[in-house]
C-alpha cells in the first residue's frame, strides 16, 4: 500500500524530471559522467542514494522492481530500499530476475541474461574511474575531455611489472563505446563482460558525488587490458555447494572454527532457480591450503584438524 504522505516515489515531479533530463544526456553520451542536482534522500550517502534517485525518477505503476545487494535480495540494505519503493510507490516487487522490469543493484550484475525490456540501475560510490590516481575532479574532467587515459594504462602496466597481474579485482575500468573511460561501479571484474552489448539499458547513479552515467543497450564495453596480458575474469576451483553451478560468481563463507569454507552462488535468485530445477551441489565445505606453506606447516594443520 502506498504511503500517501509523500509524492509517488518520494521525489517531487520537478526533481524527477530534472534527473530524467540528465539521464537522457547520459544515454546520448555513453560512459560520460553527467553532473546532476543530487538531492538528500532518506538514505545515507554511500548507501545507494544515486541508484535510488534514478529508480525514483523512472519507476512507473506498471514496473516490477527487484533490488539486490551483493547479488542477493535479502541483504538488509536491499530489503530497506525495496521496502522504501514498495511504500512510496505501491509497485510490485520481486526477487526473480526474469520477472523484473527494473533492477536496482549494488556490486553485482545478475547471472541470468537481461533483456531489452529491462533496466539495470547501479549504485555507484565513486563514479570517477581515475579517482585513486588523480583525486581532483577538476583535473579528471579535463582528462576525459581529451581522452587522456595514459595514467590508467600506466597504472595497470605497473601492476603487471610489480605483481605479475593487474591488481584490480573489482571496479575494473572499462572503455565505453571506445570513447569514455568508465567505472563499472564496484562489481567484480567477473561481471564486466556482461556489460558489453547488453540488450538492457544500464544506468549508473552516484548520489554523493552528484554524477549520472549510462550504457545504452547494445553498446560496446571493453575492459582495459594489454595484448600480452588479456583481461580475464575470476575462476574458482569449486562449484556452488548448493546448486552445483560452475559458471556463477561465488561467495565464500567460513563455516567452522577450523576455517572450512563453503562456496555458494552470490546471485541468490539464480541459485534458487537452479535448485528448483533439480540441480544439486556437493553440500560440502572445503578446506583451503596456504599455497606458500612449507610441508612442516601442512602437517601441523592436518594434525590440528584431526584433533
Amino acid at each position, binding site marked *: 500500500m502506498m504511503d500517501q504522505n509523500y509524492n509517488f516515489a518520494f521525489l517531487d515531479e520537478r526533481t524527477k524530471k530534472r534527473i530524467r533530463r540528465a539521464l537522457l544526456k547520459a544515454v546520448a553520451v555513453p560512459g560520460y559522467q553527467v553532473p546532476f542536482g543530487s538531492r538528500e534522500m532518506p538514505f545515507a550517502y554511500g548507501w545507494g542514494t544515486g541508484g535510488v534517485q534514478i529508480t525514483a525518477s523512472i519507476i512507473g505503476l506498471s514496473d516490477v522492481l527487484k533490488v539486490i545487494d551483493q547479488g542477493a535480495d535479502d541483504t538488509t540494505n536491499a530489503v530497506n530500499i525495496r521496502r522504501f519503493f514498495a511504500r512510496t510507490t505501491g509497485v510490485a516487487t520481486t526477487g526473480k530476475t526474469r520477472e523484473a522490469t527494473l533492477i536496482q543493484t549494488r556490486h553485482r550484475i545478475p547471472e541470468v541474461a537481461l533483456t531489452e525490456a529491462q533496466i539495470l540501475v547501479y549504485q555507484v560510490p565513486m563514479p570517477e574511474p581515475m579517482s585513486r590516481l588523480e583525486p581532483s575532479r577538476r583535473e579528471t574532467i579535463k582528462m576525459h575531455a581529451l581522452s587522456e587515459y595514459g595514467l590508467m594504462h600506466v597504472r595497470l602496466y605497473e601492476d603487471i611489472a610489480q605483481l605479475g597481474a593487474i591488481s584490480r579485482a573489482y571496479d575494473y575500468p572499462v572503455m565505453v563505446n571506445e570513447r569514455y573511460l568508465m567505472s563499472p561501479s564496484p562489481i567484480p571484474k567477473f561481471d564486466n563482460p556482461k556489460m558489453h552489448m547488453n540488450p538492457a539499458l544500464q544506468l549508473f547513479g552516484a548520489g554523493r558525488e552528484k554524477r549520472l552515467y549510462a550504457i545504452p543497450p547494445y553498446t560496446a564495453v571493453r575492459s582495459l587490458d594489454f595484448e600480452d596480458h588479456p583481461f580475464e575474469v*575470476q575462476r574458482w576451483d569449486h562449484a556452488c555447494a548448493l546448486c552445483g553451478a560452475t559458471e556463477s560468481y561465488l561467495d565464500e563463507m567460513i563455516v567452522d572454527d577450523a576455517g572450512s569454507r563453503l562456496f555458494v552462488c552470490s546471485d541468490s535468485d539464480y541459485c534458487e532457480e537452479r535448485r528448483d530445477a533439480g540441480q544439486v551441489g556437493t553440500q560440502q565445505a572445503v578446506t583451503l591450503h596456504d599455497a606458500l606453506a612449507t610441508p612442516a606447516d601442512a602437517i601441523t594443520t592436518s594434525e590440528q584438524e584431526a584433533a
Partner: protein
Amino acid sequence: MYVAVKGGAAAIESSWRLLETQRRGDTAITELSVAQIREQLSLAVDRVMSEGSLYDPELAALAIKQASGDLMEAIFLLRAYRTTLPRLGYSEPLDTARIALVRRISAAFKEVPGGQLLGPTYDYTQRLLDFALLAEGDGAATSPLVPTEEAGAVPETPSATVPRINDLLAREGLLETPQPVDAAPPGDLTRDPLMFPADRALRLQALARGDEGWLLAMGYSTQRGYANSHPFAGEIRRGFVSVELVPDELGFAIDIGDLEVTECQMINQFGGSREVPPQFTQGYGLAFGGAERKTMAMALVDRALRADELGEPRVAPAQDEEFVLSHADNVEASGFVQHLKLPHYVDFQAELELVRKLRVAHAAAIKEAA
C-alpha cells in the same frame, strides 16, 4: 546442509524497536519534550539548523530528539526532510547592519559605533562545572554563575542600524570590498552540483552548511602556518535580522520573518602589489543562531580559499577549494565513511581470489628458482 541466512526484513524491524528503546532510555525518567530541547539545548538546535540548511527550530529540536542527541544524525534527518520542500523563491540579501543585537564584539577596535555588547557567551565563565544544575526539578534553583534576576532571558536590543566595522574601514579604503564577478545571480548549491572552480558565493554556501569540526580544524591549520592568514576578528555579531522577499505579484519587498544569525568578519593582512595599494582583506562567516566558533572558523577558511583571487601561492590544504569543499559536508562524509558497514563480500571475494592466485604464482616462482 547449509541454509542461506534470510530474514533481513525481520532484523530491520527489530532494529527499529531497539533504537526506540535506546532513544527513550529509562522510562521511569520523564520524557524530554521537543519544546524543552528547543529552549534548553538551543545551541544544538542552532547547529542542526545551520548544517541541516533549514531554519526551523521546532523541526531541528524534533530531529535531535529522534536522533538521541546525535547531531550529525539530526542534521541528516533535517536535510532529508528539507529536500522534499518546494522552492518558493529567493529572498533579498540579508541586511545584517539592521539587526536586533544579542551580542556584538570587535577585537580590532576598543570602541565602535553601536558599542560592544558582550551578551551571552561562555568565554568568561571559568568553565567550572555548575553543580547547582544537578539539583534539577526545582524551579527556584538558580545558577550562582548567573546571579541576575533575568537569568535565562536572552538579552535582546530592539532592531536598529548598527554599522558594520568592515563598511567603516572600507570607506577609508583600508579594506578591500569584494565585488560580484559578474551580474549573474548567485548559483544554488542545493539545486546544482558544486563544480570547480567554484565562485565565492558557492564556496560560502558550502561552508555555511559545512561541518563545524571540519571548518574548525581547517581554520585552525591556517593559524598554524598552513597558509598565512594573520587574522583579526574585525567583528562578530549575533542577533535577529529580517528576511525580505519580493513576490512577483507585488514587485516590492515584504518582510516574511526574522532569523537569528551569527556573522563574523575577519580582517586579514594583505601587503598589496604594484597594481593594488596596501589594504586589508576579509574573510566571512555566517550561520544560523548562536554559532560563534563555526562562523569564525568559516571566515578563516573563506579567506584562505581566496588565494587565487588575491594572487597568493596555494601551499596549504585549507587553500585548496576542491579539497576543503568536497569534504566539508558531514551528511556526505558520514554516509560514505559508514557505508563501509554495508556488505562488501563480493568485492572482498574478488580480492581473495586475486591474492590466492598471486600466492600460487609466487609459490611456483620459488619452486622454479630452487
